[in-house]
């Protein structure tokens, strides 16, 4: 059951991801990316991370992608590619590059053996998926990074407002 669900979600996510790159119209590429992110949330559920799955739907597929769609609609909805590139054969080399990277990654990932990993901080599966444990780790072990993150968001807000403000 889990395996078939994983293959279903993985296939949809992969097809949607390829469509993001393949699609000439940016609007449809963004919609395809939303499909990809939503199916990834399903895979996170299969991997015992329900909180991350919820945040993926709410923040990623919700907030961030709405921001993208907002800007796309503001600029040029349904526009084709901005201009026809005369050197389109270079894109072919990019796909070859990607395939080579995958070929190099494959034996690396294949050789990873989870049995050899350090085993001292073992958690039961129930604690792994619980939001309580997640929050304890976030607010105890990672308290300083969490606070720095709030500073980062503040800087991003100020930067976005300054950049997007109409210069007079």
């Amino acid at each position, binding site marked *: 059951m889990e*395996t078939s669900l*994983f293959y279903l979600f*993985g296939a949809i996510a*992969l097809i949607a*991801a390829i469509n*993001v*790159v393949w699609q000439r119209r*940016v609007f449809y*590429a*963004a919609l395809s*990316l939303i499909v*990809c992110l939503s199916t*990834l949330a399903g*895979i*996170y559920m*299969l*991997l015992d*991370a329900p909180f991350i799955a919820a*945040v993926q739907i709410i923040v*990623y597929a919700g907030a*961030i992608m709405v*921001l*993208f769609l907002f*800007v*796309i609609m503001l*600029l040029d909805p349904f526009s084709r*590619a*901005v*201009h026809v590139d005369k050197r389109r054969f270079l894109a072919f080399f*990019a*796909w070859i*590059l*990607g395939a080579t990277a*995958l070929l190099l*990654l*494959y034996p690396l*990932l*294949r050789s*990873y053996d*989870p049995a050899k990993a*350090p085993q001292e901080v*073992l*958690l039961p599966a129930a604690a*792994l998926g619980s939001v309580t444990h*997640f929050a304890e*780790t*976030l607010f105890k072990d*990672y308290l300083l*990074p969490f606070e720095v*993150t709030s500073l*980062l*968001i503040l*800087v*991003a807000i100020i*930067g*976005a*407002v300054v*950049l*997007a403000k*109409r210069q007079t």
Partner: protein
Amino acid sequence: MSIFHCLILSALLFTVGAVGVIVKKNIIAVFLCIELMLNGVNLSFVTFSKYLHQVNGQVFVFFVMVVAAAEAAVGLAIALNLHRNRKTLSVDDADLMKW
């Protein structure tokens, strides 16, 4: 569903995103492909979190999402500014700092 399947899926997502960053000409499409790459990395974090029985990977995913949100906000503001000043969205036309 082994750890290997999830890692291969995340590698595939990352590679497709990286190819998109190289291929795409529209600046917003490049941003979309960067989001794709970030999600590939997120998937590998969650996978390791499950198979090493640690919750740290999920915390990292949380931070990656926050950084992605900040990056999207600032990047889209830059795209808006580019469109306003140069009437283009092509990354090839934004070559003021090239020479």
